[in-house]
């Protein structure tokens, strides 16, 4: 195949979902219940094409092409282009595979919804945007689709916009993301101002040269605070990643985003969009690598979020919120890996997480579907036999999340822990934190399993009648994801077992990163053993709390009431934000912006323009006689004047 044919094939990957979006978006009125016949084939075809891309990349063929000169203003020159390397290939596979399965799953889950076609349209638009995000070859294109996936997230969280809570959650997600994106935008500006380009390759080359430059942040105020330019850029970019990937303290939107339909939670808020931050940090690693302090920030924020979200996850009662906090926590692990320079592992964990977390969300959705919308785990229990397929797949997902050996999550999480252990003093501390997080993870994962599927049923009587297993169109994607949640980890079997294929595969992308030598194989083995023991310990504790001695949780909660309420209220984050930001803003808006600025200044000006125009028109309209020949006369008079001037100026 010629180069252009290959390029065309690669471009079809995002174009197919886009076409599906256009068809369902513009003609949703007609596609209605048949909307999935448009969207599903498009996305599945994208997935198949992604396999070809993977094949090409495996044989060493990378692509870098500018397709279209987008903006040219002075020195500002941005093209729309694609870049395909191993990192992109992995992301393509993850995005298209999970997206395909979620599309198929949605056929069953969204059946009968009145916004069926709209849902599929947005889902396809999201897939398109996400694919373009990972395919782009420059930062501005990345940013545009970064915002586009945010938009899709907003639209899909608010899918049931007639529900107040859904609309509020959508707005919250959008606003919180803006905070991070503001930093991201500043970072892009700074890159352009400094390096004069936004193209990945040029930025990577230029960043190295700019290592020693500093910026005086307090210069406008007369102070002096020199910050390394690259550090500043990296931190600003990371701010964007924090917003998108729900890292402390910008995580507040993600649990609320669970107001959206569950397939959306699985696709956007677990498997793909929220990992865009991780992808971006990994993609921009040459910049981060140049700033040790930025790297440390990433690692600390990641580690902190990992443990912090896990603690909240321990006590939440909404099935989807537990999984959501788990997602926040796992994203923390990925950033932790990035922060210690283990980008390949971060991407590996991104991939396994996409599969097992997508599985958990879809499984949760299946439970909710079975219970006709019930989400409170206190009102579940004993579902094991009623919905066996969901139970089995959910169990596999939980095992994978908890890090039980041979399941996908084990390999990736364990590798993160190992790398952290070998990454200096800070790494040691973070290793400890992450290990604790792993314990909590195993605990809350199995808390969920036990509460939902085991023990006595606590269902409301009328709900218990309707419990039914989901249709095959939902369970088949679950099974596929379950298989992936087990085996996808095997491509990353640690080096001591002679594996780490994915590490090798991604190596060309991260070749500039200093490779941390594995100091001691025996030590590494012990580390693995410790993490396995921790995971099993967590499961055992959950078993004790929720199966063998069901009274324990209450006892523990009443022993530390303040701590319990702190966790239950999510460390009071929403309340703090409300008090510190939302209310002052409202007060200023009401007192000044509305009553003075808007009414007295802006309205007065606008009305003034209107009335002046009206009065002027009243007198000027008289020249509009309506007689065509008068207008012709004007033309001729104009001609007369022009020729006269010409003649006079001869």
């Amino acid at each position, binding site marked *: 195949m010629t180069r252009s044919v290959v390029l065309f094939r690669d471009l079809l990957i995002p174009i197919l979902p886009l076409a599906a979006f256009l068809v369902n978006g513009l003609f949703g009125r007609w596609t209605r219940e048949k909307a999935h016949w448009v969207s599903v084939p498009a996305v599945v075809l994208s997935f198949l094409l992604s396999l070809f891309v993977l094949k090409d990349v495996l044989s060493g063929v990378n692509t870098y092409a500018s397709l279209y000169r987008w903006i040219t203003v002075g020195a500002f020159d941005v093209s729309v282009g694609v870049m395909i390397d191993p990192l992109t290939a992995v992301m393509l596979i993850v995005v298209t595979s999970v997206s395909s399965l979620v599309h198929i799953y949605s056929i069953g889950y969204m059946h009968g919804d009145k916004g069926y076609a709209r849902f599929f349209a947005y889902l396809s638009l999201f897939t398109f945007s996400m694919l373009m995000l990972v395919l782009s070859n420059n930062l501005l294109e990345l940013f545009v689709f970064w915002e586009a996936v945010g938009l899709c997230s907003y639209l899909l969280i608010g899918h049931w916009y007639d529900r107040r809570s859904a609309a509020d959650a959508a707005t919250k997600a959008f606003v919180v993301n803006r905070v991070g994106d503001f930093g991201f935008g500043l970072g892009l500006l700074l890159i352009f101002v400094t390096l004069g380009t936004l193209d990945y390759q040029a930025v990577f080359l230029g960043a190295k040269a700019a290592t020693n430059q500093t910026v005086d942040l307090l210069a406008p105020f007369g102070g002096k605070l020199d910050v390394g330019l690259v550090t500043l850029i990296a931190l600003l970019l990371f701010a964007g990643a924090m917003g998108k990937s729900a890292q402390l303290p910008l995580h507040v939107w993600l649990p609320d985003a669970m107001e959206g339909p569950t397939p959306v939670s699985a696709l956007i808020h677990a498997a793909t969009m929220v990992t865009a931050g991780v992808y971006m940090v990994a993609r921009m690693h040459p910049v981060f690598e140049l700033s040790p302090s930025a790297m440390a920030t990433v690692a600390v924020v990641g580690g902190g979020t990992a443990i912090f979200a896990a603690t909240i996850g321990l006590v939440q009662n909404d099935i989807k919120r537990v999984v959501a906090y788990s997602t926040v926590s796992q994203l923390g692990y990925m950033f932790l890996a990035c922060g210690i320079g283990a980008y390949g592992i971060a991407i590996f964990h991104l991939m396994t997480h996409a599969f097992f977390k997508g599985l958990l969300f879809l499984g949760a959705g299946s439970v909710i579907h079975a219970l006709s919308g019930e989400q409170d785990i206190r009102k579940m229990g004993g579902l094991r036999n009623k919905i066996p397929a969901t139970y089995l797949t959910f169990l596999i997902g939980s095992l994978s999340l908890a890090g039980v050996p041979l399941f996908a999550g084990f390999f990736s999480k364990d590798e993160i822990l190992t790398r952290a252990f070998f990454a200096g003093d800070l790494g040691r501390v973070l290793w400890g934190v992450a290990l604790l997080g792993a314990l909590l993870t195993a605990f809350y994962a199995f808390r969920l399993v036990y509460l939902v599927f085991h023990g006595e049923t606590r269902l409301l009587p009328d709900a218990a009648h309707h419990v039914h297993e989901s249709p095959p169109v939902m369970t088949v994607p679950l099974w596929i994801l379950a298989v992936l949640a087990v085996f996808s980890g095997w491509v990353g079997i640690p080096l001591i077992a002679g594996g780490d294929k994915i590490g090798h595969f991604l190596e060309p992308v991260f070749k500039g990163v200093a490779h941390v030598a594995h100091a001691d194989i025996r030590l590494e083995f012990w580390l693995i053993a410790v993490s396995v023991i921790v995971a099993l310990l967590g499961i055992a504790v959950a078993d004790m709390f929720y199966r063998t001695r069901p009274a324990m949780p209450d006892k523990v909660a009443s022993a530390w009431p303040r701590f319990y309420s702190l966790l239950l209220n999510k460390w009071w984050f929403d309340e703090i934000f409300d008090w510190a930001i939302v209310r002052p803003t409202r007060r200023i808006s009401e007192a000044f912006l509305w009553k003075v600025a808007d009414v007295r200044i802006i309205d007065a000006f606008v009305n003034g323009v209107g009335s002046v125009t009206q009065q002027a028109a009243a007198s000027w309209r008289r020249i509009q006689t309506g007689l065509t*020949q008068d207008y012709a*006369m004007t033309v*001729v*008079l104009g*001609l*007369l004047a022009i*020729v*006269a001037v*010409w*003649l006079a100026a*001869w």
Partner: protein
Amino acid sequence: MNLDQAFFLYFAAMIVVFSIVTITRKNPVYAVMALLVVFFHVAGLYVLLNAEFIAALQVVVYAGAILVLYLFVLMLLSVPREALGAAAHRRWPVYALVGGATTFEIALLLARSKFAPRPGPYPPDVVREMGSTQAIGTVLFTEFLYPFEVISLVLLVAMIGAIVLTKKWTPAQGGEEGR
């Protein structure tokens, strides 16, 4: 003075006289007939200027199609002669004066201009040799191909527009009555 110039003077005189006749007739039928005479003499002028293809076009399209259309519409309307009223509107002397002044200015401008001959690829003897049809065709279908296609589109749009404008819409066709 040679024969061409004599012919030119004849054509010019006829064109001017019948142009004036055209715009002064109260009955449009006479105006059409006068305009027909003008078009014929303009065609003759084109022959004098080595553009016999344009001359043929002038006769075929202008005289044979456009003007017949005018006449046709005139018959279709069958405006009663009394309904026509005054030929010119009430402020016509002022308007005529302005029109005349403009013409005078343009004439003055033309008189003062110098048009240096810049020999192009088609001197008259070459055109006479190959025929103006071939010469025009060569230029039209190479240099002006794109405008040519655009013009065909313009004609198509005008045709559709004319049909839509004159169609009598019935309620069954979803249009307003008596449109």
